[in-house]
């Protein structure tokens, strides 16, 4: 990879790459059900940058919320702000099963070649009841993957154990065994349309419904073999490999506003601005002062202020 590309890549964290690439899956005016963290940030970027009329929804019951900050969970108070409709999970998921959700964003731990996903447990040498690693389970993903018209998976790509031949537990139904097995299972949603990672975007063949590498970032154009190496099965690659535009200035400005504490784009807890405020404030010695609360409040409130007063999009 030449120096200039390496230089360019180093400006972004893997999460920022995935978030920006993921945001572009949303078309203006679409109904977008989002989850937490990356999946939430992605929807918020889309609304701020290129899809101002997108209707953002979370399973907690917020329909058409403004997206003034990345939500730490579907019921984060940011979701309630200037939100058109407050309702229930029962109503949101009923509307989803009815077919009103155009696209849904979900994360994944293990994924197989037909877009089925495991976020329940890694058995390792154990089993379902005594797994090596217990994971979050369905969350909204079980329902989004079942019923959203398009399901977009988004996560940072791992070297191993992520794109696997066989899942320990199928939490999200993708195209099941390929071809029309999903349809025969009577699932209402259209199934996965894309798998967005910091190393590339994967899509599914029309007929066989098997995953293939569709787009890569400029600095990965020569790393297809390396990417294939991170996938257990013999990954198909499209002849017509497209290049993903690196994060655009507006997208990066959106991330800066949406994630003031850089919670979602800096993996290590201790290196985040919010954590630094507390650690230098003496939390590790058990100190809990009003000033800590005040500082963190200011850090977040400043970005809300901009969002609330600014006529969107930026």
């Amino acid at each position, binding site marked *: 990879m030449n120096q200039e590309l390496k230089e360019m890549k180093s400006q972004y964290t893997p999460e920022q790459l995935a978030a920006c690439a993921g945001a572009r899956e949303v078309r203006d005016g679409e109904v977008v059900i989002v989850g937490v963290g990356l999946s939430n940030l992605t929807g918020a970027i889309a609304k701020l940058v290129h899809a101002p009329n997108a209707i953002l929804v979370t399973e907690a019951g917020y329909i058409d919320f403004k997206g003034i900050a990345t939500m*730490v969970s579907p019921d984060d*108070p*940011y979701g309630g702000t200037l939100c058109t409709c407050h309702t229930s999970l029962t109503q949101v998921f009923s509307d989803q099963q009815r077919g009103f959700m155009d696209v849904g964003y979900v994360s994944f731990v293990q994924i197989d070649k037909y877009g089925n996903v495991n976020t*329940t447990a890694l058995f390792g040498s154990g089993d379902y009841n005594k797994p090596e690693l217990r994971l*979050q389970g369905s969350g909204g993903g*079980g329902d989004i993957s079942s019923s959203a018209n398009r399901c977009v998976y988004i996560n940072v790509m791992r070297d191993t154990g992520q794109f696997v031949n066989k899942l320990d537990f199928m939490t999200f139904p993708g195209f099941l065994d390929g071809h029309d097995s999903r349809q025969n299972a009577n699932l209402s949603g259209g199934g996965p349309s894309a798998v967005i990672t910091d190393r590339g975007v994967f899509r599914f063949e029309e007929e066989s419904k098997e995953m293939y590498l569709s787009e890569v970032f400029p600095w990965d154009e020569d790393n297809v073999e390396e990417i294939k190496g991170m996938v257990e099965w013999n990954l198909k690659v499209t002849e017509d490999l497209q290049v993903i535009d690196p994060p655009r200035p507006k997208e990066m400005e959106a991330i800066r506003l949406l994630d003031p504490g850089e919670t979602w784009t800096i993996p290590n807890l201790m290196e985040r601005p919010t954590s630094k405020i507390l650690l230098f404030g003496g939390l590790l010695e058990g100190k809990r002062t009003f000033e800590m609360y005040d500082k*963190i409040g200011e850090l977040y409130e400043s970005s809300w202020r901009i969002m609330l007063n600014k006529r969107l999009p930026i």
Partner: protein
Amino acid sequence: MAEKDFKTRLDKLMTEKEAVATFLHDGDSFTLGGALASRRCFSVAREMIRQKKRDLTFVDTAAGVETTMMVAGGCISKLRLGYFLMRTAGVKIDDTILRAMRDGVPNPLEVEDFTQYQLAMGFMAASMDIPYMVTKSGLGADYLKYNKTIKMANDPFENKPIIMVPAISPDVGFFCVQRADRRGNAQVFGDIWADDVKSRACKHVVIITEELVSTEVIQKYPANTLIPSYCVDAVVEVPFNCHPMSCYGCYGGYFADYTSFIQFVLAFGTYEGALRWLDEWVYGTEDQFEYCEKVGWRNLMRLVKMERSINRLPE
């Protein structure tokens, strides 16, 4: 008292201690209102731990940090959930549940996985007193392999595969709300999660309100009265009962109180750390008022300011 008697009283106010002692017994199944970061009954979870409740089954669409706390506190023997909070804000926070499942520490733990909508349908069936609900959520996935509750069949009208979820009726449900009157009319502002169906599914319902108000105040926004008094057995008024999480229009949580969040995450990295945390923050506080004292009322008021700068309740 029979299920009916509590519900017919005109003044259902009692302390949190009394409500947990009266309605939650060892071996019971229970659910909590709201979920994850909004209107979540942390004060009740702390009280259960103080009263050393044992062998409880917790059934809910999504479980968060409060479940980590209750499992570490030894209250829970079974989790029937649509979501287990294992990582939050990108940080792995939970070996507690895995430790109980794998090593039986502090006690063996059984889990049963559902999709969130499957659970909502189980609550809906109970809320209407019908035997089951059907859904297409989770078809083709692996839930049926391990889940002993849900069934699959072909529906009698279109003869296509469908998932049948039997009625799920917890013995008791604790619901945090922004406003309630003494008789139990409970109002929710902001996200409702599955409280619309949960509040009818439970045999007993305890309302934990931020603010006790007169019925005249309730009548100003009748569309927000999610739970009418005839569903309610008891009303408890305790401040900041969702801390460290948030309550729409009242106070911010999580990021707003990153201090509590980081302290919790660091403590629960190990079992010993978790027990120390429980000693300090749960056993070490007599009730919710002492807990607030410990967090610091001025700090709590900062969280009120943060929330009310973005969301305000209509007066």
